[in-house]
């Protein structure tokens, strides 16, 4: 168990667990104790943790829809502009705005827009890329990418108190509790 000196500013307190079930249980109890700034870390997506932490549904699906609509509209405008305004070409007497032939590119650009919004939206909402984070100061946190589960209560939580919060985490079935320096 790592405790830091009182004059070191804290990012929060980090508790280590061995199983995902313990993590979910700890998240529930932490929330029940009134903590709001709580985050869980796991080496794979844990089923049920979002509910335990009270996370709101992700914005990604809506962003993806916006991306798809943007892609579709830009494809239609582009094709209409090229075929009917900028470079009108009579092909076998067909109308210049021959929209049935525009569908393949319309589809491709819809998928491209939606996928880009999904991917880059995911990065932006997750705050990535972010090379430095206070949690990386805890050597044991490396195990979060391997086989351990962590729960952090952040210092910006109004109920956070470096002694009491630590004591609260220690009474959970945790393997260890670490102070995380800012």
């Amino acid at each position, binding site marked *: 168990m790592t405790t830091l000196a009182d004059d070191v500013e804290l990012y929060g307190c980090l508790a280590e667990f061995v199983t995902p079930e313990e993590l979910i249980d700890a998240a529930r109890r932490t929330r029940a104790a009134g903590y709001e700034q709580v*985050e869980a870390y796991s080496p*794979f*997506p844990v089923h049920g943790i979002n509910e335990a932490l009270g996370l709101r549904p992700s914005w990604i699906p809506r962003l993806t829809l916006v991306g798809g609509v943007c892609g579709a509209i830009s494809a239609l405008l582009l094709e209409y502009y090229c*075929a009917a305004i900028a470079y009108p070409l009579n092909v076998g007497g067909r109308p210049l705005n021959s929209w049935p032939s525009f569908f393949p590119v319309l589809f491709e650009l819809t998928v491209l827009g939606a996928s880009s919004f999904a991917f880059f939206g995911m990065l932006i909402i997750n705050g990535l890329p972010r090379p430095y984070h206070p949690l990386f100061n805890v050597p044991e946190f490396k195990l979060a990418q391997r086989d351990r589960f962590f729960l952090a209560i952040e210092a910006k939580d109004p109920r956070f108190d470096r002694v009491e919060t630590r004591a609260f985490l220690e009474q959970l079935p945790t393997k260890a509790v670490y102070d995380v320096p800012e």
Partner: protein
Amino acid sequence: MMSESQHKEPIGSSLPQASDELPVLIGKHTYGSVTDKICDIVLTRHTPWFWWAGFSTAVMFLGALLATIYHVLTTGIGAWGNNIPVAWAFPIVNFVWWIGIGHAGTFISAFLLLLRQEWRTSINRFAEAMTLFAVTCAGIFPLMHLGRPWLFYWLFPYPNTMTLWPQFRSPLLWDVFAVSTYATVSFLFWYAGLIPDVAAMRDKARNHWARLFFGVLALGWRGSARHWQHHQSAYLLLGGLGTPLVLSVHSIVGLDFAVSLVPGWHSTIFPPYFVAGAIFSGFAMVLTLAIPLRYLYGLEELVTLRHLNNAAKVLLVTGSIVSYGYLMEAFFEYYSGDIFERFLAVERATGPYAWSFWSLIGINMFVPQLFWFSKVRQNVKLLWVLSLVIQVGMWLERFVIVVISLQKDFLPSSWHKYYPTIWDFSMFFGTIGLFFTLFFLFIRLLPMIAISEVRELVHIKQEHVQ
């Protein structure tokens, strides 16, 4: 119909296995042990002899590709055997062959993700890498076939001093958009899946440069619940978008042919039958790669007989669809009553290229039928040989479609046989070199199996035991 609760399940979970099914994961594994198993292939100073052997062979072929590109750029595409009427020869045959191979990667990653097939895990990562590298190889051919590849950007719509704009009514332009979208989305999908795994590599690596390399790639991933929530949402959506995309790409490749009036090309069955053929050849490539990899790197516990067995079943299904395509194509040619179409059907079976037609029929119609037998599906060595044979068969299919249809079209005065030159062959084998060079670099530098997804599989397995 899926119930509400099933929607919330993590990706990769599914119902308990039936007892007669082969396992997707063998042995007592923990989250840590699967992480070690996959990371240790990369995080070691020791590079195995077979890696060097394979990589150096691939680089030699890559050298042939570069030499060919140099020759073709400096003398012009007359270095190849393409000529009127067979203006689309090896470059287009090879383009379609490579694009098709790529499709299995997206199919495994995206479509099987939506179907919650747990046997997708542990083969999806390298299948996706295979897609990316196959698309890279495919792209070289039309690019070089332009003749002046440095003007490739003329294909895209942009305001220019020539006041020219691309023709959106042409399938060749659809192809530009389809292939470039496909390459982009495949890359995003692959990288999205890779982020948590390179974070695992970053936190496991001890070497400073390795930490820096994986640290930059991981973008600061911490595996928080919020990270995972958005990541899983985006990943599933990319899967949902990738599935119709993969169907559209090869349909459009099929339309490149079908929209023309050339006998043997002008057929409505082309788009679906091209898609089935693509997945057929791609799964063959997955087996070609997976079988030696699992043996050489000792990954038999992660890439099990179940994976090989199921891939062989996919070969059976897609091979049968392709066979149906051949039969329907022949029927349409007869039923159209068009003399040129009928002539082409006879020409294919009895003309100077009949050897390629009958080899293709022999391979693509009969070899997949062997996969009705579990003894064949689970005989690893035989499966590997058959996977190579299928790729030859699918290459021949594209050869038959492109070359036989073009060499004798409407006017006998313009008939001309096609003879490839040495540069056609060196270009083709050169791209195989490029593919394997990239693939060997990938297995040496990045985790070839999706670590976080295998951990999830371990978790599901533990829950079942409890």
